[in-house]
């Protein structure tokens, strides 16, 4: 197919939209990593739980969408706090090498996968559209209204989160913690408490993302693992543990997919191979990602 047929504006708009949703997913993961040096394999599963909660409350019980999103966020926040306090904290304290938490994270991922499948079944679920209609600009850019709304909501969630981290007391404490755990402790930051808050916040972001996106793409019980892996990629592109990096990583991956799928359409099966190989090359050249510190 020839490239004249492809409308680049549409591709860019799709990339932006995709980037917005990816950024929201990646934020929680990077926050948890920054605070506790834990690569949370269960992040995608938390996202799925959030999706199902919104599915039940908005899709099945018929309560307002907004209520469902809040419920997803709050529930996941609680789940995150419990996971941190009763699982990660004791394991981190006892283990010799901190990588051990990866096994714990993977086990929690399996556990949530099992629970989700038992509770919500094997089928793909979706909810009624929150907004009907499609924005159509001269057939150059086509975007359904519900996507625009979700992108806006995701964007405001990201902005709220950044403001919270910048200006609130817990936000500042968490940033101190992320920068230097020991120094923060010496300065009187309650490490245990803020680790828990941070984990809860990260889980909450995953839950909100799941809740928002269920209205566009639906949710199914098996998608957790793949979502985690995709989120890892975004975090790595931007630089692990850096908030602006996660957002950048989300947008870059979104754009990469959107543009790559269009430009490389003739090579079909190779598109993702090219994307992944470039990612590997990029990381080898710049191991700390775009904005990360070369710690790891």
């Amino acid at each position, binding site marked *: *197919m020839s490239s004249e047929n492809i409308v680049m504006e549409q591709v860019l708009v799709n990339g932006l939209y*995709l980037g917005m949703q990816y950024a929201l997913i990646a934020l929680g993961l990077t926050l948890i990593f920054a605070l506790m040096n834990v690569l949370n394999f269960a992040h995608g599963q938390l996202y799925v739980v959030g999706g199902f909660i919104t599915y039940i409350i908005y899709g099945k019980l018929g309560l307002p969408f907004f209520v469902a999103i809040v419920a997803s966020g709050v529930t996941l926040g609680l789940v995150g706090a419990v996971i941190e306090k009763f699982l990660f904290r004791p394991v981190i304290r006892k283990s010799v090498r901190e990588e051990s938490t990866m096994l714990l994270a993977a086990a929690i991922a399996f556990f949530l996968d099992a629970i989700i499948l038992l509770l919500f079944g094997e*089928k793909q679920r979706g*909810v009624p559209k929150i907004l009907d209609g499609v924005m159509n600009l001269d057939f150059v850019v086509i975007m359904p209204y519900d996507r625009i709304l979700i992108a806006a909501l995701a964007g405001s969630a990201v902005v709220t989160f950044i403001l919270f981290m910048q200006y609130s007391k817990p936000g500042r404490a968490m940033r101190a913690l992320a920068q230097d755990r020991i120094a923060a402790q010496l300065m009187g930051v309650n490490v245990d408490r803020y680790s828990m808050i941070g984990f809860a916040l990260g889980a909450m972001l995953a839950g909100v993302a799941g809740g928002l996106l269920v209205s566009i*793409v639906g949710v199914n019980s*098996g*998608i957790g693992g793949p979502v985690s892996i995709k989120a890892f990629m975004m975090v790595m592109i931007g630089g692990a543990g850096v908030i602006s990096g996660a957002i950048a990583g989300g947008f870059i991956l979104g754009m990469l997919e959107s543009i790559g*799928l269009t430009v490389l359409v003739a090579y079909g*099966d190779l598109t993702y191979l090219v994307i992944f190989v470039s990612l590997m090359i990029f990381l080898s050249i710049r191991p700390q990602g775009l904005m990360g510190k070369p710690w790891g």
Partner: protein
Amino acid sequence: MFVNSFSKYAGLKASLMTAALALTSVHSPITLAANEVLKIGFVGVTSGPAASWGISNQRSMEAGAAIINDNGGVKIGSVTYDLEIVSFDDQKDPKRAIAGMEKMAQENIHYVVGPNVDDGAAAVRPVAEQNDIIYFPYAFPKSLYQKPASNAVLGMVANYQSGPAIYKFLKDNNGVNTVAFIAANESDPLTQRESGVAAAEALGLKVVSKTVTYQVDTTDFSPVIIPIVKLQPDLLVLSGVAPANAPQIIRSARELGFKGLISTETGQDAQVLQEGAGSLANGFISVGGASTPTIRTKNMEAFIARYTEMFGEYNDESNTKVYALEYIVETLKANPAAINNVDEFKKTMDTFSAPNQYLKGDQVLRYVGMSSFGQRRQLSIPLVVNVYNEGKFETLFIAEVD
């Protein structure tokens, strides 16, 4: 001939025996116990992203077995058996599938439904052949069913059989001239896309796009689908699409302004389409078995009711998956010697025929596949082509595979 007269004799003897049993048990109305147990296996994927395929399979078998057991079991030869389904989750990993088949051999099971995907079906072949297991994969590679392979029986209609029928129908009735294909970047869908393209070209259709693929973990199909929407083909074929992905692709395509028809050659679930794409999925063409109220029998309704009662919610994918257990049981009834002897089973496959209790009309259960595989290694499942409309499937046409 021998087989026939034998089974007749066995049937006679058996009915005499039940009569005798019935006489002796007049005074004790509760005679539930004492049936022997016949184990039938299932090896497939019941967790992870593809869980839907295996779970609908496993549950169909369990619901089918429950109905039979409630009616006092199934009489094969002179013995009445209760069915027990032994399931193994292979997690869509071919290495696990081998372990599952070994488990089945250990349990002395000779008839196994599954696996659900190409790699698993190929991997279990050595184990199945070494241990005298006949297995019923839901995977399409012809090498599984052609000689020298002989223990695999295709459990459904292959896409290289249903595809041509659907394309031809749409070409003749809807004036379809151009067609585009989209497939997940995985073995099964890619292979199905290839045979779909070949079938379309053989019919004289113009294939305008056959290179668009997507990752199985795609959460947004708009970027994937844009190149095809711009081409506006008359027909968009979703090759080997997973039920989870179908509504999302349809929704993205329609929202971006795609006008043509959309079809697939795999079974789908109406509820999933309804939730995931709503009325945008209207007109979506897919393949089913005893799938619409107009063509299904009371027995099928009873099966659906039982399934719903046991598992809370029916899955339309089971409309085709209801058949595997039925075939195994009916073939064993036709030749009781096959119960521990797969060679007897294979012999019976060539001549076997029984009424189809799930579909109205005079379609029969038999083994087919002569034209595709050169031997009878496929279940004849009615090729029912459905079109989705407002939460329900409607039958477009019915065909049969030879």
